[in-house]
């Protein structure tokens, strides 16, 4: 290489470096933010889960003892079981019902827009407000739900909905469904708009009826959207907290305790008046993280599968 060529190459390299440096400078704030507020707390959480720590003083390293204690903690297992139950049922209900509603509304009913708007309204109300509202409606002594049941002659069905271990989770699931139905329905509705109409025309030429169209065209074509809705529901189910915290605080007798409410109670002791066990609570949060990761992996798997199919 000639001297001029070498100088030119050096100059180009320097210019490239300068350009890169400017680029790095621009992303520096967000990288710094990510390191300080995401990565460091994330790594630190794993460390804290291996310690005995009340949130003050020096954490005492105890290895895997917190996780060993979790294995023998009956409330943890109850919370895990309830979390998985809540996640499974809410995912099924909050996927199938919105999908059916979206398909029905997509059929072009008169007043469909109004109905869609009405269903979406609960979504704009915060979870905390919804929880407080439904806590009043479901109150065993003064709630409207019991009053209506009694007034229409169904007194035998009146319950302490949130105070009865047999009905509390179903009540919360119903509120969760009420809250999210409109949102997921809109996602499905948007998905339905993207389906090529010629597919239906071709099916009709082949003699398919409406039910067959739905089964053979609509549902399969909605698979990518369904994957998104299922994933959102799974993640929402694993990390469910606000609604249950506000409505029952995990009670009665831990029958609506989920991992979120349990770890919050352990870390801050606010509902139970307990001494904080931040190390132990962080071990619970690690379990929540693992469940969340499993959900993300499931999402990748489902997305890839639907991509392979089409």
């Amino acid at each position: 290489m000639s001297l001029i060529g070498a100088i030119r190459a050096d100059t180009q390299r320097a210019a490239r470096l300068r350009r890169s440096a400017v680029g790095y400078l621009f992303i520096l704030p967000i990288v710094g933010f990510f390191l300080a507020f995401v990565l460091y707390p994330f790594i630190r959480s794993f460390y804290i889960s291996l310690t005995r720590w009340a949130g003050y003083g020096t954490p005492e390293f105890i290895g895997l003892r917190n996780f060993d204690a979790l294995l023998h903690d009956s409330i943890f297992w109850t919370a895990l079981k309830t979390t998985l139950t809540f996640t499974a049922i809410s995912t099924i209900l909050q996927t199938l019902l919105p999908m059916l509603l979206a398909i029905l509304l997509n059929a072009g009913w008169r007043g469909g827009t109004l109905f869609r708007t009405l269903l979406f309204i609960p979504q704009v109300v915060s979870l905390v407000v919804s929880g407080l509202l439904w806590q009043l409606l479901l109150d065993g002594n003064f709630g409207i739900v019991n009053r209506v049941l009694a007034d229409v002659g169904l007194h035998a069905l009146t319950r302490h909905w949130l105070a009865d271990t047999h009905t509390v989770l179903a009540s919360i699931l119903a509120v969760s469904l009420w809250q999210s139905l409109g949102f997921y329905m809109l996602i499905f509705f948007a998905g339905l708009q993207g389906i090529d109409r010629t597919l239906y025309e071709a099916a009709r030429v082949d003699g398919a009826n409406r039910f067959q169209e739905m089964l053979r065209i609509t549902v399969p074509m909605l698979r990518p959207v369904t994957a998104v809705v299922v994933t959102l529901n799974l993640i929402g189910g694993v990390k469910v907290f606000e609604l249950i915290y506000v409505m029952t605080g995990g009670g009665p007798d831990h029958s609506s305790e989920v991992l979120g409410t349990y770890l919050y109670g352990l870390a801050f002791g606010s509902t139970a008046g307990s001494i904080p066990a931040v190390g132990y609570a962080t071990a619970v949060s690690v379990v929540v993280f693992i469940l969340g990761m499993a959900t993300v992996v499931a999402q990748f798997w489902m997305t890839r599968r639907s991509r392979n199919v089409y």
Partner: protein
Amino acid sequence: MTESRIADSKPMSRRTFLGRSAAGGLALGAPALASACGGGGGSGGKAKIRMWTWYSEQQALWPKVIKDFEKAHSNIQVENRIFGDTNSYLPALQASVSAGEPPDIFAPHVLAIQYGKAGIALDLKKALGSDFLSGFFPSTNAEYSDGGKQYAIGWMAQTFGIFYNTEIFTRAGVDVPETWDDFSSAAAAIRQKTGLVPCSLSNNPGPSGLDFFLPLITQVTDNPQLVLDLDMQRGGTTWNSPQVVQALSLVQKLVKEQAFGSGINGVTGTQAATAFYTSKAAMLYSGSWEPQGFRMNAPASFQSKYKVMQTPAWAAGKKHWCANQAGAGLSVAAGSKNKDAAIEFLKYMYEPARYAQIMNQSHSMPSTVAAGQKIQDPVLKEMTSWLIKGNGCPHILFGKGSSDSASNELAALIGGKKDPQAVAAGIQKAVHQAQGR
């Protein structure tokens, strides 16, 4: 005009942009940085005391109290923050403690002893002196004491009794019960003759049921120290002792007899009180804060309909032990640069005439004997008289894992899932497990 000026202006180079951005950022961040590094000093050389509580009962009174104090102490400034409830207060307190900057004066909730042992809360026996503390009801001092030190003082005391609706009692033809057996009979009569819930009781969140159960242990033993020792697992005491089982057996008996409403484990304090003042329940087992709530929430016609009775005795002739402590206390941060100023403010607030006035004006139960003798509210006066007689006993658990363990197991007993023996053993086992965390 503006457009041409923009067009004429020289384009800003990347370097200039970055340089100016950095300068701007520094300019914006400098004040925050300066204030963060400023330490605990107040404005204009004043010592600034930060006080955090959730005690909204005195919300309207604080501005005047603080203004008068600052007027008398020109070198001290008080910044008072009242949180809505413990659910919002405790995480904030914990975050400040974790960050090493707790407020100078704070409500310790159930953490006073733990914070004291960790060097976060100041030993007030040393700072205020034994004479100062001797004016408090013994039960409100005992709850914050361990190893000869005291890490908080009571602000508002709480005493539990049974509020009852005199009209419903008349309709049912029952008298104020002397013992728990009398209470059972009265409950049966109320249920039979009026169809109403005999007594409203809440156990949501869990620890509220302990307010009913723990005094029964003292009633069995006539020893208020036992619950404190069980809480701290001192002196070889264990939760699975026969006395605890006896107390639990009474709870089970009353639940089975339907002396309380259904769904106790899901009933909140507000719901229990509402059932009482809307005349759906003849009685309400609750604390000395209720009269203030009745005044705010109940119909005016209700105010003359209710009275309060002592907790029934274990047997005829025995003492009417009643739950009493100061759930609302005040601690001083041991590491505070302004702890002398904080102590000065505490002394000012607790000056007998001033403290009695604050408690009377806020319809709160005081923690000192002197203020207790000056109570004007008739219901609170009645409840305070039980303390002056020495009937107060503990009902708040402070030890690691105690509150959670006892409330979980009590809920299982109330829910009919476990018997008293299994519950007592369960508490002991859970406390042991929790202490290892």
